[in-house]
């Protein structure tokens, strides 16, 4: 039994924590500048190998594994790091690596080196990543619009669309976002740090990812993987929110003592801790299942997703409650965590979707 990260993985975590400290302050600087991301921090992330971590050495990567990605996700989530790590390294790179074929040989070295940023563009306004798309591909050219697309300043996006060859299903495609046929219109998202846009394609040349009509299956697998990595991001965020609330409860005085001396406050913090530690176990199980390609992956992914979503939303909401009025202000970092917890809860599928997946997996045993 070894249910924890290795010493090397913990060493990576320490490096990341040093690099990503002051995350909320960096977020505010990026928001004030109206920039897409913190370019200096991104450069450091690339230098540290975050973009190359899970890419095979043959494709210019470090050839590390899922466990390292999980550590990266957790620390990025903790710091709210304003860099496109999640969209690019955790979501898009994974599917290009697994199913990219010739496109993988072209894009992975560039993604590893941080010369290119990738994102996913699957939804069309409502629903989950696995909603059937209306976008179409005719003669290798994509038309339609995708919204909301995270980190739309990316160079390339994974897009779902239907084509004649896909029969009743749909396919996945790799679309260049800097092509002249693509229009990106910024939208204001609940999370102001991770930028979003409507992306319109008008006969944009695209390359297929995976096989014809295989889109739904690919997205299914991609969502299991994304759910687990996102769960680690949520776990990091939840722990940051808990510690922020704990620190405030120690420092803020009312009625002649720190508010953290009151049992109502202590017990709430203990409950936040309990949910986070339960979620952590589910995250570890998910990491293991993803790493070894276990048949238990659907159950593990759904459990991690549900536990981590609940833990982060609860921690972010109650952190504000424990801060009182100051927690409700725009300037409080509580707002950043609540907005991030809401964004991550909305992405990668709802409670309903994952509940259904989980119960189906439990019943199938």
């Amino acid at each position, binding site marked *: *039994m*070894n*249910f*924890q*990260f290795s010493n090397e993985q913990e060493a990576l975590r320490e490096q990341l924590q040093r690099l990503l400290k002051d995350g909320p302050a960096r977020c505010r600087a990026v928001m004030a500048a109206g920039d897409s991301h913190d370019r200096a921090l991104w450069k450091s992330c690339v230098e540290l190998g975050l973009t190359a971590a899970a890419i095979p050495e043959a494709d210019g990567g470090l050839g590390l594994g899922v*466990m390292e990605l999980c550590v990266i996700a957790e620390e990025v989530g903790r710091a709210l790091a304003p860099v496109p790590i999640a969209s690019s390294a955790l979501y898009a790179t994974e599917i290009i690596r697994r199913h990219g074929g010739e496109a993988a040989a072209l894009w992975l070295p560039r993604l590893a080196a941080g010369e290119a940023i990738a994102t996913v563009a699957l939804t069309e306004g409502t629903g989950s990543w696995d909603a059937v798309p209306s976008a179409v591909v005719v003669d290798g050219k994509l038309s339609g619009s995708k919204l909301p697309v995270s980190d739309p300043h990316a160079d390339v996006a994974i897009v779902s669309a239907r084509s004649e060859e896909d029969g009743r299903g749909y396919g996945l495609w790799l679309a260049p976002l800097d092509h002249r046929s693509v229009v990106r219109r910024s939208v204001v998202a609940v999370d102001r740090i991770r930028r979003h846009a409507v992306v319109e394609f008008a006969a944009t040349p695209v390359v297929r990812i995976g096989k014809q009509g295989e889109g739904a299956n690919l997205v299914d697998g991609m969502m299991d993987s994304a759910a687990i990595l996102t769960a680690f991001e949520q776990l990091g965020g939840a722990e940051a929110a808990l510690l922020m609330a*704990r620190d405030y*409860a*120690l420092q803020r005085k009312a009625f002649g*003592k*720190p508010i*953290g*001396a009151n*049992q109502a*406050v*202590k*017990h709430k*913090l*203990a*409950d936040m*801790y*309990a949910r986070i*530690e*339960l*979620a*952590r*176990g*589910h995250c*570890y*199980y998910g*990491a*293991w299942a993803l*790493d070894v390609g276990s048949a238990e992956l659907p159950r593990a992914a*759904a*459990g991690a997703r*549900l*536990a981590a979503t*609940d833990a982060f939303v609860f921690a972010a909401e109650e952190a504000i409650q424990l801060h009182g009025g100051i927690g409700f202000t725009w300037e409080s970092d509580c707002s950043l965590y609540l907005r991030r917890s809401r964004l991550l809860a909305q992405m990668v599928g709802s*409670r*309903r979707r*994952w*509940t*259904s997946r*989980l*119960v189906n997996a*439990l*019943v199938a045993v």
Partner: protein
Amino acid sequence: MDFNDSPEEARYRTKVAAWLAAHAPRFEAGPDIKPNSAAWVRLSKAWQKVKAEAGYAGITWPRELGGQGGSMLDGVIFQQEEQRYRVPNVLFQVGMGMCLPTVIAYASREQTQRFVGPALRGEEVWCQLFSEPAAGSDLAGIRTRAVRDGDEWIVNGQKVWTSYAQYSDFAIVLTRTEPSVPKHAGLTMFWLDMRSPGVEVRPIRTLAGDEDFNEVFLSDVRIPDSQRLGAVNAGWKVALTTLMHERLAIGKPPEHAGIEQIIALAKSIRTESGGMLLDAADVRDSIARYYVNDAGLDFLRMRAQTALSKGLPPGPEASIGKLVMAKTRQDLAAFALDLLESGAIIEDDDRSVLSTLQQTYFWAPGLRIAGGTDEILRNIVAERVLGLPADYRPDKDVPFNQQ
């Protein structure tokens, strides 16, 4: 990450599993053996004896004391494998888990050697005389007095919630020896022969209907000073040793209603429209929520096991285990009983799913209190794990007899 045993652990598990398969079935309690009956006590003792003879009692105790000198992990592995059978082992939990470790730590060498063997072989049962009617969560507030009389102490008072006192041969007992100092500083621990004159045990019937715990009245009970554990007035430190061992119990809890039972139940019940209850959205939502807690507890145990396999104590997260488990069981059982509607009204005493659910539900309130109430456990997490201030304790520095 790896869920598999190390080769060494796997070898031990295989050996244990083979031994259990050959022996445990004969000691499983059948439906005719009610918990706490005389037959159940006999079966418990017989099983413990067989384990001791085969080298599966006191697995983690030192060899020089008659134990096996195994690691904490060996102990956990045996526990995990033993739980696959309905063998009765709770009768010795308090003794082996808490009393004997305290005796080993504080009694003389001769006394330790006198007690360890019979305890390992299940010949002698131990109980723990700690809680009192006026001292539960605030254990240091006990009132049972021990007054010195030459080489003896004369003990008077009342203990309560003492599991298996009615079957016990010996006890460890926490007493107040100095009332004129603050409460933690005036306590002393002894071991006691439960057949001493003046010891009276009265079983208490629990809400669940069982009689596994008791009131114990101590009237002019004489305890030789040679039975003192630790220094005079150092009893609080000794009690903490005992309670620390309680926290190390990280095995999976015995049989109770879990996700599998609820799924089976929800499959078997039809809705008004003829579909399976398992397809109802609210039922699925509840199943998912209980799964998150239930499996989450398994993962906590795996993390503790990981620490033990590296020779480290379990991390702070282990402290939420009982807190989450007790309330989860209560809610899960209530939810499942609700699915059965009037079908769950009549108490079932065979070993059906219904009876397991009813037992789980009516035991849960006790579980939420025993070994630290939900509220005390939240305080412990907040103070020791998260570093929040201790509660205001007006009696902390006040002599006990001036409170």
